[in-house]
């Protein structure tokens, strides 16, 4: 058997609140495409960031060609011939292609950049990828797909032994994709190791040689791709154990009146003809992989992003009427993906944070000023109702645990009491207990008649919560399921395969 180019032994990494990787050991062989799969948050990207020198592991060893090495920064990674094509754009928009590609190692004579040589090098790599841009073109003049190509080209520049692709195809057209796959085959022949992370499972069968699946930060299986089927991959990704049930929210509730109807909502390049309805007392789960447009839909719906066309109708006092998009915010209680950044005023008190959503309600009858007594009273009531653990309502929100912070946001919305809640990853980064607490509150909210749209990367949680599902892929709603749908139904629809 040939010696692996790269071997990791027992890599572990934890971030505050989450164990991202647990004792991960993998091997990458020269001339092989190793595919890594796993749902969002499974730990794939963290491992790649460790290999790329962007984050440091807590434990574990990395061997390159059998020699233990330490990769503590991106330059180290480059020294060992490891290149990384990042998931999110890592380009400098105002600079030229050649600058972007050579930024970490300009060919130079006495400190003066040799642009002729640099351009030649870039051009030859771009040609390999089937592109004929002029290397002096500015990045901001390229389309997103072409930008992605440049990023890939940057990784191919120079002496490479291992190239990590983290979802490289998410913004490529199929012509560009074919090109990339051809290049992968070429690189394989040159004896370069390739690690390929993707959410689109059919790509694995197109280019992959071997597969490793991650779940909750652990390696849960590895297999040669020619020996497995599409269904096996899904089973590996989501696990086969039965869903734990926190509470009975899944039993289809008596669904109330129609409250929200979305027709043909579109945003160029992001969302295409989104149609769906939402009823009172319903928890609608929105499932999709990273980049499927879940968060984009949420943002467009509540008016945080502009829309190109489409109507949003809301049932107000029994009448379904179209609302103006810029007024949309008023109907939705929004819980964002990143509560610390978008949701809370961290240095301020619990009370201030709760009362923020609807200060008008708190205006005193006597003066046009805020009635602080009422504010305190209402905040206290909500704190008790949601069982938020604080010493006093004057406590700084920044000092609370994640679960309690999330409850503060929930309390805020309970105060203003919107008819519809949109929750993007409401339990991300919370401990197990806090998670089930928040989930319980969501269930109660729905029972009390609110309509809830939940986005979550945790498929178990989504299944526990939702009474109906929408599945998104590439900016479209591709499937709708009722409560009895299984995890693999959702997974298959989201990954977009047709291999059943």
């Amino acid at each position, binding site marked *: 058997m040939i010696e692996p180019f790269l071997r990791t032994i027992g890599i572990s990494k934890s971030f505050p609140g989450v164990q991202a990787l647990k004792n991960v050991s993998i091997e990458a062989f020269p001339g092989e495409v190793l595919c890594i799969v796993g749902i969002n948050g499974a730990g794939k990207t963290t491992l790649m960031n460790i290999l790329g020198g*962007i984050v440091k592991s807590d434990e574990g060893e990395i061997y390159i060609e059998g020699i233990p090495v330490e990769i503590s*920064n*991106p*330059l180290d990674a*480059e020294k060992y011939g490891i290149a990384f094509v*990042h998931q999110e754009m*890592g*380009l*400098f*928009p*105002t*600079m030229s292609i050649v*600058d972007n590609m050579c*930024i*970490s190692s*300009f060919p*130079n004579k006495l*400190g*003066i*950049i040799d*642009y002729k040589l640099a351009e030649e090098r870039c051009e030859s790599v771009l040609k390999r990828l089937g592109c004929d841009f002029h290397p002096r073109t500015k990045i*901001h*003049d*390229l*389309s*997103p*797909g*072409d930008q992605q190509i440049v990023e890939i080209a940057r990784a191919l520049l120079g002496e490479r032994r291992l190239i990590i692709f983290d979802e490289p195809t998410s*913004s*490529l*057209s*199929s012509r*560009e*994709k074919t090109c990339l796959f051809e290049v992968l085959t070429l690189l394989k022949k040159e004896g370069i190791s390739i690690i390929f992370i993707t959410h689109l499972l059919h790509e694995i069968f197109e280019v992959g040689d071997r597969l490793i699946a991650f779940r909750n930060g652990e390696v849960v299986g590895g297999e040669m791709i020619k020996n497995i089927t599409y269904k096996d991959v899904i089973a590996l990704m989501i696990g086969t154990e039965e869903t734990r049930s926190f509470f009975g929210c899944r039993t289809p509730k008596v669904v109330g009146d129609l409250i929200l109807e979305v027709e043909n909502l579109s945003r*160029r*390049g*992001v969302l*295409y003809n989104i149609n769906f309805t939402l009823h009172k007392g319903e928890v609608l789960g929105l499932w999709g992989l990273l980049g499927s447009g879940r968060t984009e839909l949420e943002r467009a719906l509540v008016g945080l992003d502009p829309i190109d066309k489409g109507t949003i109708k809301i049932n107000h006092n029994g009448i379904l009427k179209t609302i103006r998009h810029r007024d949309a915010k008023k109907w939705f209680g929004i819980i964002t993906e990143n509560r610390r950044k978008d949701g809370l005023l961290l240095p301020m008190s619990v009370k201030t944070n709760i009362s923020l959503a609807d200060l008008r309600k708190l205006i005193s009858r006597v003066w046009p000023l805020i009635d602080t007594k009422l504010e305190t009273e209402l905040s206290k009531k909500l704190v008790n109702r949601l069982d938020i653990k604080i010493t006093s309502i004057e406590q700084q929100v920044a000092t609370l645990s994640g679960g309690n912070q999330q409850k503060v946001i929930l309390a805020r919305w309970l105060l203003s009491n919107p008819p519809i809640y949109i929750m993007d990853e409401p339990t991300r980064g919370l401990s197990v207990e806090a998670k089930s607490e928040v989930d319980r509150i969501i269930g109660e909210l729905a029972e009390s008649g609110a309509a809830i749209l939940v986005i979550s990367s945790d498929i178990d949680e989504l299944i526990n919560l939702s009474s109906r599902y929408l599945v998104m892929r*590439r*900016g*479209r709603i591709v499937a709708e399921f009722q409560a009895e749908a299984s995890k693999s139904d959702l997974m298959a629809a989201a990954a*977009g395969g*047709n291999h059943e």
Partner: protein
Amino acid sequence: MRKKQHLDVRYFIVSQGFVIAMVLFFIVFSIIARNFMTLKNMVRILHTIAPLLILAPGLALVIMEGKIDISVGSIAFLSSGLGVMLMVHHNIPSYVALPLIVVVGFILGALNGLLVVVLKINPLIATMGMMFALRGVALQLTNSMVLSIPKELQRIGYANIGTIYIDVIIAVIILLLAHFFHVRTPFGRHIMAIGNGANIAEQLGVKVPKVTFLAFALSGFFASLGGIFVLFQVGAVTPTMGQGYEFNAIALCLIGGISLMGGEGSIIPGLLLGGVTLGVIENGLNMVGASPYAYAFVKGGVIFIAMYADSIKKVLRKTRITIAEEPFASAAGQDHKKLSVRSNK
């Protein structure tokens, strides 16, 4: 297709708007003031702005990095003040004192760099502190007095070759060198990369703290160099020397298309255009006999328009690209086709 062309015309007008506006200024001024469009006057305009042009390239690098330095005026004052005191009170020859001025400037700039990089103070606050503090030190040193420089140095400020002043030639040479340094060295490119996104740059192995530190040090260096040429023209260190230079220099950068967000702009033609624009407006308004206060007002207006054009440009660029190609949409469409073909089998 038609729509795209239409957009391109608008894009051209907005992106080249400045040149168009300059041409208009020239036409209006030369019609009203007979002496405006003369070689002598053109040379005079360049002569007036030369010190500011020499002072600005360092600051431009800092701005391109997405940061700011408002201490350049005070650095110019303090470093020149020190140099002149050495020459006048301690009889140190000028060929020693003048280089010392730029060394002092570099050190003061490096101090700014330390505040920003090591102590992680917000650049605006750090350099604002330096702006006040250094001016205080300089006023104390010079006792708030006017100190004349030696006669032979005063002559340099108005020395000329033919009709062109020497300091204009020097300014152009310095701008050319700075431009070359900016576009052709890894350091210059790293500055642009940091201005575009410090995190990405860091991930790609750019030494962000080092580059930032150097940019501030260079800003101090160029500030003191500009100060020297102010000395030559004025003939003395005055208590108000350098006051307001920081904002004039920032204005010059902005008008020249260097974005305060960082990552955008050039030294040539950017800085040069900005400088000439400011010079032309000041001189032209003077020539047509406008109120002396009109200049400040017009300068404000021009900065505003430059910023507005910049933001329109960005919006247009976005639209242009989305209309030109929609890979996301086409890819999804083709995917569908491919899949349906497969399922038919």
